[in-house]
């Protein structure tokens, strides 16, 4: 049982909107602006479970942010809400200046497909279709013509160094290769935001390093806004913002010691 004293700090942090006052270009909207986001499961039943207790967070264009925290602290839950895969129980969410928490499924799909790129711990490549076709998938749902899709997918696979494996199916690729294809796929519609939930979690440290370098490139060369969940302290230290999540609350923010 937490003591009385320990409980005070999280309660106070709930008042803070992390990153709201961070320096940013005049006149731009934040990519993400969360206000008092609460997520509950089993609503109405006796074992109702509140997983996020009111999260307020602002992320500006071009920021590379990592989220760290213990297992079960709610990182993935928060990420899913940010990725519009899940809806908060309460609170507001503005993305690039647009309120998105009350949009219909169809509109959420539209934004997800064009503004957000996902990178998963388990890669989630679509089986039985080639790496190239995998990268084309988001463009297909964005109704981009076939020829353009193929050209773009080829360029992206080349960018992640997978030009020699374009026609291989996922089951013919190593974990690191799969993750590189997944990153190319996340970039397909040139989204405003890349969300990566433990992208190196299933990889050895050397391959993980390679993937992290790719993220740095997306950040520096492509000026993408990135949000990274990681259990690796050294990798988190490479990002400019580190948010610490604990038991459904952001309990602090600091600059990575190794940030460029």
């Amino acid at each position: 049982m937490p003591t009385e004293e320990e409980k005070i700090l999280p309660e106070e942090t709930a008042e803070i909107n992390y990153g709201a006052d961070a320096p940013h270009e005049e006149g731009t909207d934040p990519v993400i602006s969360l206000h008092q986001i609460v997520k509950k499961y089993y609503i109405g039943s006796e074992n109702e479970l509140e997983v996020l207790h009111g999260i307020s967070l602002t992320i500006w264009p071009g920021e590379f942010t990592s989220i760290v925290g213990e297992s079960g602290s709610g990182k993935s839950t928060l990420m899913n809400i940010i990725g519009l895969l899940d809806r908060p129980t309460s609170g507001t969410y503005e993305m690039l200046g647009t309120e998105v928490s009350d949009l219909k499924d169809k509109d959420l799909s539209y934004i997800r497909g064009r503004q957000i790129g996902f990178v998963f711990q388990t890669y989630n490549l679509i089986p039985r279709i080639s790496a190239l076709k995998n990268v084309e998938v988001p463009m297909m749902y964005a109704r981009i013509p076939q020829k353009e899709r193929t050209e773009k997918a080829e360029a992206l696979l080349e960018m992640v160094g997978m030009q020699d494996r374009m026609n291989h199916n996922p089951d013919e690729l190593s974990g690191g290769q799969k993750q590189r294809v997944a990153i190319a796929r996340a970039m397909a519609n040139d989204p405003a935001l890349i969300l990566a939930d433990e992208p190196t979690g299933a990889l050895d440290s050397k391959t993980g390093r390679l993937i992290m370098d790719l993220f740095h490139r997306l950040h520096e060369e492509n000026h993408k806004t990135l949000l990274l969940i990681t259990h690796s302290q050294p990798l988190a230290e490479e990002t400019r913002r580190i948010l610490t999540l604990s038991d459904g609350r952001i309990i602090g923010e600091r600059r990575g010691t190794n940030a460029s």
Partner: protein
Amino acid sequence: MLHENVRLAFVSMAANKLRTFLTMLGIIIGIAAVIAIMTVGNTLTVANQQQMATFGVNNVECYIGGSDSLDYSNEDFDWNNFHPAFTEDMLRKMIAQFPEEIEAVGISAYGQSGKATVQGKNQDQYYANVSMVGINPGYMDVNSSSMTITAGRNFRSNELTADSWYCLVDQMLVSNLFDGDAESAVGKKITVSLSHDTAYEYTIVGVYSSNQMQFADATSVKDMQTNLIVPFQNAKAVAGEDSQDSFNYISDITILTKTGTDVISFTTQLQDFMNSQLPSDTLYQVSCYNNAEWIEESNKSLRQMTLAITAIGAIALLVGGIGVMNIMTVSIMERTREIGTRKALGARNSDIRLQFITEAILICLLGGIIGIAAGLLIGYFACTKLLAGYTVTISWMSVWAAFGISFAIGVFFGFYPANKAARMDPIEALRYE
């Protein structure tokens, strides 16, 4: 997008070939059954129609014979005086009774057999076996659908008397006597020697061709007997006044009805009328038939058979459809993560729904195509082996209908699982192990 969905469907079908095939089986069996029976049915219907044309669907045939009450085993009965026959008086009254229905009345009777030769030609080489057939003026009209004049001409109305020594011959006789030259045979005289050593000279006025069957009871084609057609009265005179042969006892007649006559009901009316003309204590009875009735009857039993097999096909299709629904449900469950991923990548619910409906439709269409091919093959063999001699007629309408039905089954049975996939929660789908 559609192209991509079709591609994906094939990829997914190919990934589980055996399962896909087993799923298709119901569809294949159902479609094949329906197509096969439709092919057989269509072939029979077309063949019936062709037969209808050759037999003359507007013809009614009447036979006179012993009544149903007659005891044929009665040895005390005076069978020598038992001669069921239409009298001239009966036929006249019949024509007077049905002026609106009767176009022509055809009578024919078989006479003796003999040998035809040509004077001045070697009789061992140039001969033909003939059977005399006497016809009345209406005969050619009644048989116009099965009999045509290929050279020369038909009898003229004044050439049908007892002293008209004119005849119509067929191509067989022309081959035997005139080396096959029909044109040159017309106008030639032939000598017909009958069995009792009497010979008559006839002039050929025309060559006919008939598609009615000839009996080949000869040892060679050359010896085959063919019909020598002569005027009825002439044949009767030749046969002899008192001979108890078919010329004096006309037991069957063929009536050509006028266009627009309801042949089936006319047949009953005619039969009733003819029986009413017989004396009340008669031992005779008239029966009338027509081909329309027979064809109607065979079409009816064909329709019943078609209906029964179609019902079996429909059940197979229903079972097949449920199979498709089942396999789609399994396939969607297995691909839950993929569905979640697609949603994360921007797929709308409708995109997911379309993808799986496309897959269900393609399974059904492919099953349908295999079923159509199998059905056509089965139908073809049934027609050629069981109904030898029929020209196989494919019912293209049913082939297109089979495509349509396969498509519809895909849509109908694919919709529920596809919709379930479309409505999956992306988070739960992504977490699915």
